[in-house]
């Protein structure tokens, strides 16, 4: 409908509207609204195609890279829903990435507070150092990390891997968090301080409630990064029963196995569920998902 409507209405638009009459102005506004809506919907449809392919193939008995109507089957899911392929790796991943994310977020909130509130000569160099370190691919440091983990007997340990994941996510976390915190006005804080609140109380009662969006963004960002990280757990964990889902997924998906499209798609869906859930749960707290802090102003 909308598609056929829009060109006609658009044509009504006067070429020059120096002194707009109320009527034409109204039509123009409607016309551009329709155009905006239509183009956004068309764009979304195009954006959706790859996701749609994944959904269709996962329930298709004879999947391929072609987009096709499925001959429905639950076989693909049935094949992968077992302890070795799915449940245990997912649980491991949730433990490590969940723990790592929490540790990272807590540490970056704590670290962001002094960085955002107090002046110091060391502040700028510190911030730039951690900012630049985000440019280093983590694969590059894994060899020394392995040697180090062997020496301190942290190799093949899930808590050890969790700590490293948290540390690797920290630079970006601190940097983002500090920026979000900068956006929280000082005025309220000063009032609370005059009332005798200490720094921890100020941070917890005044600053944090005002920057939940920021905390949530950092949480989501950190978790997505860890959840997709394949190389770190692959190198640091030796026992197969400790490996998280990302290791299996990475090896399966990057092999483009020609014979198991359906299973790979089903696995991709299962594997994506935790991140999607995390987003849905947290975005609800954001009230619609649009509050990616105006504080990202630099």
């Amino acid at each position, binding site marked *: 409908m909308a598609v056929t409507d829009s060109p006609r209405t658009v044509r009504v638009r006067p070429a020059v509207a120096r002194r707009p009459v109320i009527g034409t102005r109204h039509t123009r506004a409607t016309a551009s*609204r329709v155009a*905006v*809506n239509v*183009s*956004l*919907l068309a*764009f*979304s449809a195009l*954006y959706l*195609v*790859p*996701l749609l*392919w*994944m959904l269709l193939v996962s329930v298709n008995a004879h999947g391929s*890279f072609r*987009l096709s109507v499925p001959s429905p089957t639950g076989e693909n899911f049935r094949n992968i829903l077992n302890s070795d392929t799915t449940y245990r790796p997912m649980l491991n991943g949730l433990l490590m990435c969940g723990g790592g994310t929490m540790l990272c977020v807590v*540490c*970056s909130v*704590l*670290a962001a507070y*002094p960085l955002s509130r*107090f002046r110091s000569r060391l502040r700028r160099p510190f911030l*730039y150092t*951690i*900012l*630049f*370190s*985000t*440019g*280093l*691919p983590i*694969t*590059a*440091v894994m*060899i*020394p990390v392995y040697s*180090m983990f062997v020496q301190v007997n942290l190799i093949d340990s899930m808590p050890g891997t969790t*700590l*490293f994941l948290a*540390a*690797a996510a920290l630079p970006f976390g*601190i940097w983002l968090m500090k920026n979000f915190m900068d956006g929280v006005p000082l005025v309220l804080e000063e009032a609370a301080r005059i009332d005798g609140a200490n*720094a921890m109380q100020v941070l917890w009662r005044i600053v944090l409630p005002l920057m939940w969006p920021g905390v949530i*963004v950092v949480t989501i960002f950190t978790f997505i990064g860890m*959840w997709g990280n*394949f190389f770190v757990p692959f190198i640091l964990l030796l026992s197969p029963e400790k490996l998280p889902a*990302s290791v299996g997924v*990475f090896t399966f*998906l*990057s092999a483009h196995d020609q014979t198991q499209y359906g299973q790979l798609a089903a696995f*991709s869906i299962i594997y*994506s569920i935790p*991140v999607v859930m*995390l987003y849905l749960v947290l975005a609800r707290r954001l009230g619609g998902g*649009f509050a*990616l802090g*105006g504080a*990202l*102003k*630099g």
Partner: protein
Amino acid sequence: MTVTAAAAPTAGPRRGRAVGGLLRGVPLLPAVVLLVIFLAGPIAYCVYYAFTDMQLTGASGTHFVGFDNFTRAFRDADFVNAVELTLVFVVGSAVIGQNTLGLALAVLMEKAAKPVRSITSTVVIAAWVLPEVVAGYLMYAFFFRQGSLNAILRGLHLPQQNWLYTLPILAVCIANVWRGTAFSMLVYSAALNDVPQELVEAAEVDGAGPWQRLWRVTLPVIRRSVMTNLMLITLQTLSVFGLIYTMTRGGPGNKTETLPVFMYQQAFTSSLIGYGTAVALVLLVVGALFSVVYIRLLKIEED
């Protein structure tokens, strides 16, 4: 801990401030401890490795070789190719792709009806929260010769291509735009919220068209968000590895072999740890250079 805190008030004003200064930094401790132990140490080792001929297999000892790895890199046609591709990838997919598309979406969504807005944001964000390898796999399926893109083009009677063979760098750029635009969109949506409505309306009354309003009013107001967003997505895009590796493994040939992929191939496929880490350090420098440019631009604003 309690002791030092209690001691602070009794100390003289100067000492008090010094202790206070130190105390203020205490919340930094957990982060700093983690960073120093788990990142600073290994990175220092990497810097050392970059000046050695370390191999994971094939040689018994490790020798200091000075700047050999770096001079070798700059004479290596594949390395130069990787640097060029990295620049194309960062500029094409992040600076131009994600940034522009994110801004366009944010602007359009402000004007759109509420259901359309939710649909668009849901779809775009869904692509963002997908794990990197899954996104890579989906994009591979999308661009594959018998994949969805060619099916759509065939439906529209447009010429088809074997995208991953003929235009692989474009394919991985689009893949990165597809996956990463949500971040810019969210940043700009938030930033646009803060643009005072009166300013826009005033410009409209003065007869400024939509483009002029965007260029003259909105962008100057949100310029700091633009710079910060650019810096973040640049750094993120520079180290993209899983997406490209899943889609093309750097091929065909080395047509999508950006620096992270090149580094991985050298360090782990050819087992040249020394050379690989040297490449990683170059990548670090490239990231720092980009950041410095953005920071400078922000600073000029401040002055």
